[in-house]
């Protein structure tokens, strides 16, 4: 009797059902992982979390043409999903982050790959070619700006600069900002009032750009007074200093005077370009990169101009609070391929050159600076302002013990009550300090560091 004859109908059915069960459950689990943040990984390919507007299909096709053995799966850039993927232990191979506020956190937790060994043996990129801004992606264990590199800048800007509508300024009889003399924050508030136009309860045009008391914005304002939010070892934050309170007060004043979109009168578009382009705001808070958006509308190109970063104190500081770039997960199984893409996309590939030519930001490598556009009046003037502004470039310290989005959320949560007067600026500062320090304390505990 062969073995097959020993298999009864019942046991055959049982076995089949059991197999089907495992298969179905496995399939479901697979679906779940993908749906809950994990990405279905192509065999031998890279999973990249990025902006589909930046890493377009054209960019992917150009890469795959030269590297057919390394296909790309692109996941839309989403910090929430990135957190979920990291929590699940399945991070993407590369991810897009703001180097200025992410490097310390990513590097100190061992999430990002040290790029130095790869850069050292690269035949297409020399360290000397990297723009100085790439130091934002360095972390030596205590401070940003030195030590190993953990990412490259895709392109960069000085993010406290702003764009303004020359027509709106002229209509309100306000002198245009100049390249070498920045406005103060108080002047911005003063100028925004006559440029704000209302009718029937509706706002036709806001004078100011959209504001939010994020940690980046507050740090940038305080830096112009020679102050800082975080202490020297980045373990504590303090919003109760006179200069920090002044920055908080300015945001409250904007909300009370209703001269721009705020957290209590939110921008329905979520970011500054759509209302600025439609002349619904007279200013837009953005650095040089915004010129890339301006180039998409010839009418806007006629009235849009770039201005230096405003000042709250007497020290000129024009920080970069983003330095957007890409980093490689330390967990990736494709370190060489991931580095090759990182270098190709950020620094040496054809798309890096195209990005420079369209002015969507200052390039990551110095060799591409000559490619920046200067044909149109707004482009040449923006270049002039940008060149002058670079001497005031500064990277603001940010703690490795919390994510910037968490710190900003803690402040944002208190803001509506401060804007309505329910909280005094002193109470706002005290409560923000307590909330943020609690986050930092939690981060330090998890890092095994005593506060």
């Amino acid at each position, binding site marked *: 009797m062969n073995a097959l004859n020993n298999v009864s109908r*019942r*046991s055959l*059915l*049982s*076995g*089949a*059902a*059991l197999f*089907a*069960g*495992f298969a*179905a*459950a496995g399939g*479901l*689990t697979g679906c*779940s992982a993908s749906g809950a943040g994990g990405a279905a990984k192509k065999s031998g390919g890279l999973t990249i979390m990025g902006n589909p507007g930046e890493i377009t299909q054209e960019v992917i096709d150009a890469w795959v043409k030269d590297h057919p053995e390394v296909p790309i799966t692109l996941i839309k850039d*989403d*910090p*929430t999903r990135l*957190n*979920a993927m*990291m*929590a699940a232990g399945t991070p993407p191979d590369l991810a897009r982050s703001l180097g200025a506020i992410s490097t310390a956190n990513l590097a100190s*937790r*061992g*999430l990002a790959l040290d790029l130095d060994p790869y850069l050292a043996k690269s035949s297409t990129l020399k360290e000397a070619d990297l723009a100085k801004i790439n130091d934002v992606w360095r972390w030596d264990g205590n401070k940003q700006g030195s030590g190993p590199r953990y990412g490259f800048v895709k392109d960069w800007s000085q993010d406290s600069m702003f764009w303004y509508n020359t027509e709106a300024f002229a209509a309100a009889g306000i002198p245009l900002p100049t390249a070498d003399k920045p406005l103060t924050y108080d002047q911005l508030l003063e100028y925004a009032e006559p440029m704000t136009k209302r009718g*029937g*309860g*509706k*706002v*036709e045009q806001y004078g100011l750009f959209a504001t*939010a008391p994020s940690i980046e914005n507050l740090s940038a304002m305080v830096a112009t007074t020679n102050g800082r939010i975080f202490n020297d070892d980045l373990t504590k934050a303090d919003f109760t200093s006179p200069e920090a309170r002044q920055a908080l007060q300015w945001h409250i004043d904007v909300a009370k005077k209703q001269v721009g979109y705020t*957290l*209590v*009168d*939110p*921008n*329905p578009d*979520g*970011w500054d370009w759509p209302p600025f382009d439609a002349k*619904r705001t007279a200013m837009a808070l953005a650095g040089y990169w915004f010129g890339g958006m301006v180039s998409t509308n010839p009418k806007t190109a006629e009235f849009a101009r770039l201005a230096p970063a405003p000042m709250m104190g007497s020290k000129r500081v024009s920080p970069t609070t983003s330095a957007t770039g890409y980093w490689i997960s330390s967990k990736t199984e494709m370190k060489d391929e991931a580095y090759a893409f990182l270098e190709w996309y950020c620094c040496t590939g054809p798309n890096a050159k195209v990005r420079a030519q369209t002015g969507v930001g200052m390039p990551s490598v110095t060799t591409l600076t000559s490619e920046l556009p200067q044909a149109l009046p707004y482009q040449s003037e923006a270049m002039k302002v940008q060149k002058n502004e670079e001497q005031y470039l500064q990277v603001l310290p940010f703690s490795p013990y*919390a*994510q910037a*989005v*968490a710190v*900003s*959320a*803690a402040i*944002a*949560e208190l803001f*509506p009550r401060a804007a309505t007067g329910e909280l005094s600026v002193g109470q706002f500062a005290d409560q923000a300090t307590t909330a943020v320090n609690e*986050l930092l304390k*939690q*981060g330090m*505990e*998890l*890092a*095994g560091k005593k506060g």
Partner: protein
Amino acid sequence: MSTQSLAKYVRSRNRPGASGFRGSGAFYAFISPWLIGTVLLTLFPLGYALWISFTNWDGIAPNQNWIGLKNYTDALSDPRMWASLQRTGLLALAVVPVTICGGLALALLLNEKVHWRSGLRMLVYLPAIVPPVAATLTWKLLFDRDSGAINGVTAIFGADAVSWMSGNTVFVVLLVVMLWGIGAGVLINLAALQDVPAELHEAARLDGANAFTAFWHVTLPSISPVLLFQVITTTIGVLQTFVPALLLSPANGPAAITAVPEANRVFMVDVYAQYFAYSKYGYASAMLWLFFLVILVVTIITFKIGGRTVFYAVDPSKEGKEG
């Protein structure tokens, strides 16, 4: 073989124990897809979330420090959590009665023989099949202060534009979004109404009952189990409101969660913020377990009250007993 002896035979054949796993093996093998799915996709995540709720894990750190009940005590003493719970309760108190009563009223109207009845039924049900994301974003556009149609209509009557999407008025927008899908309940009620035996109404009419009395003493008891089902499912659904509240936030991307106006910070929005804005995975998991207990208590209370008011044509407690 009689029915009773057949039943005994089947029970003895399938009773586990005497014949061991062999008798029930096929049964378990066939239900294994669901069993494995439930263990892997429900019980394991639930257990993992319970474990996380006793740690201070932030979702990224390699170590998870055990902190006992601290997350639970912190949550119970957190005024923000109580505030979001209160808002969620308020939302349920507003939405559930209107959904149930409104759904029933509309079903009664659509149960009458009127012209265009099919068209009207379709119109009422249509919003229920629009994906919630699309519906919420559409309402968000309609309520926009500067370019929304709602303010456009009120402007015709000389009213000033209202900032619907900020302050407490955004809660009104949330209510509208939640109540817009009332048609789903209407459909269930309509099916229940058509199941009410015509002879009961006939008898009531012969006894001299007017329309209201017939509705109160015949229709309502007949459809009460369906109404109880709707009360429970709607209550649980409303308590778990998340997507509309989040989508009515003015910001996009990661800032969306932090920009949700306070009036719309319902419990699940708060939980989501704790997870993904503050990276407090332990604390958020504790909040979810506490919320599970809240929903459980609310459901038990609803069942207790329903048990006294719901009429079953066949008494489930006596069904199967030989009289």
